[in-house]
């Protein structure tokens, strides 16, 4: 057995590279090349040039708007994702299977369609939207709430699907023990159920945050795009591209890339070190 293993390991040298080369080439071409191009373009005028572009009032506002709407969405999504996962795993009720299937819908629906749908439902002329904006003065479409709503839609599956498998594997007996010892449901939840879920919640949230920061299709329809009011970073880049502010486009793009990368790396690190299944 050992001899044939050694033989196959020897042959592995060449075939290893046969496999390795196309894959590495693929990754290089697909990711590294465009990345290098944009970095090179963004640093055309040096770091100060890039910084100048990012700190232009309209650009920095767009970036901040993107960050806080994504962050707000992430928080809401984490909470609702947790509740949804809990409800789906722990309870049985009519329509549960349908609910479970609906969760994955946002993953398949094109983001542009998402934007269209939200405007159809919450636009001021529609029943719901008109009601909200006239009676309560709460505007959804073409205002930050619309942005948060669109982001919530597309990110919904991430936290839920991250939590579900972990929750399913949890041993109910611990919870039952806690209850027997006199703990309230809330304490039980906080001290027994929540801790093992912290990491999937965290990594799912980081994932949805990084996804949200770059979102374009849903937001561009729903957001209103007023510079310094409702224009997100992604839409700003589009405007910069279309108005020949190439340095601005590259600069903000690089910033978005850096943010996304950092968040993704954090999420990956969490998963790697604590072995959470996705």
């Amino acid at each position, binding site marked *: 057995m050992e001899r044939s293993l050694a033989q196959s390991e020897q042959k592995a040298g060449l075939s290893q590279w046969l496999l390795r080369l196309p894959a590495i080439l693929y990754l290089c071409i697909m990711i590294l090349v465009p990345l290098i191009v944009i970095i090179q373009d963004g640093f055309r005028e040096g770091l100060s040039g890039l910084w100048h572009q990012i700190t232009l009032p309209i650009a920095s506002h767009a970036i901040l708007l993107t960050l806080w709407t994504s962050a707000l969405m992430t928080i809401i999504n984490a909470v609702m994702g947790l509740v949804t996962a809990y409800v789906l795993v722990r309870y049985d009720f009519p329509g549960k299977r349908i609910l479970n299937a609906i969760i994955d819908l946002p993953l398949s629906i094109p983001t542009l369609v998402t934007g269209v749908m939200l405007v159809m439902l919450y636009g001021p002329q529609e029943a719901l939207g008109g009601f909200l904006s006239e009676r309560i003065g709460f505007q959804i479409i073409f205002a930050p709430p619309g942005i948060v709503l669109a982001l919530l839609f597309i990110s919904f599956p991430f936290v839920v699907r991250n939590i579900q498998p972990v929750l399913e594997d949890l041993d109910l007996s611990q919870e039952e023990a806690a209850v027997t010892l006199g703990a309230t449901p809330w304490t039980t939840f906080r001290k027994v159920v929540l801790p093992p879920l912290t990491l999937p919640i965290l990594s799912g949230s980081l994932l949805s945050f990084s996804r949200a920061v770059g979102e374009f299709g849903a937001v561009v329809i729903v957001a*209103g*795009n007023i510079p310094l009011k409702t224009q997100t970073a992604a839409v700003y880049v589009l*405007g910069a591209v*279309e*108005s020949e502010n190439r340095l601005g486009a590259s600069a903000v793009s690089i910033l978005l890339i850096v943010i996304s990368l950092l968040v993704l790396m954090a999420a990956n690190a969490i998963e790697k070190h604590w072995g959470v299944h996705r």
Partner: protein
Amino acid sequence: MKKILNYLVIILIAPLLASCSAGVETQTNDEVSLILGAYTTPREAYGEIIPLFQEYWLSETGQKVTFEESYLGSGAQSRAVVEGFEADIVALSLEADVNRIQEAGLITHDWKAGEYKGMITTSIVSFAVREGNPKNIHDWMDLTQPGLEILTPNPNTSGGAMWNVLALYGAALRGKVDGVPGDDPQAASDFLCEVLSNLSVMDKAARDSILNFEMGIGDLAITYENEVLVGRQTGKTYELVIPTSTILIENPVTVVDANVDKHGIREVAEAFVNFLYTQQAQEIYAQHGLRVVNPDVAATTTELYPAVEDLFTVEFFGGWENIMVDIFGEEGVYTQAILQVQGGE
């Protein structure tokens, strides 16, 4: 095994891909293809003009012409052409966008020579208001009503938006806005700020702006007269208000030399541009809400297109070159105004 099969398929697909792109430009003598890059507003007009031209060209030369059309914001379209979109003919909203293509070296003839200086249609900046004009908008000063929600497209991407800003600022400078002294750049700039602070949405292009208005957003849209008329033709009930002083929007059309020579279709492309000046085509423009350059057609449509009390053009500002720096440049009047308005909130 499957992997080999997969590799095989890839090897087969690659030439397919290459042929996809290369094949499109093959022109035979019986069939040619023209690419039109236009701004959003005249979409419907070209929808009717093109079939007429196709008929005309077929009967004249026996050659069949197919069209590929792209409609984007004027600035966006202009940039696309510069970046590699091989439009044979461009029909844009303003001269500056055509100049950009010329400066990129793609237009080499003097497109402004000629009877109409390269302009094919005109329109004016005006307002679209809700049915019955509930906010009582009659002129520029009414735009500063507190709490009014105004839509206008973003000058960064939309030619239409630039016209709007110019009309606003120009009317103020000319002393045609009640309460704003003429010839006073500071006062005019303040007026601009006041109006800008009432902005609620800034879209990518003129068409997007009016569509949002139709969706129920805002109380008024500053837009082309043309957009309002076309919208009304589809049954919308908003009303058109023409201010006492406004700017004449002149829309250019021209052949893109680099592309027509590359595609070898200069003759038919130039014929198309000439066709746009014919009575037939100009009448179609007129039916789709555009004022025309052809004086005969213009004379028959004065009812639909009333004269404006004080009509000025880009010459009032010294031409597009000055406008791009003085008004839309980094230190320009508009740029400063928008920063002032939004930054202060």
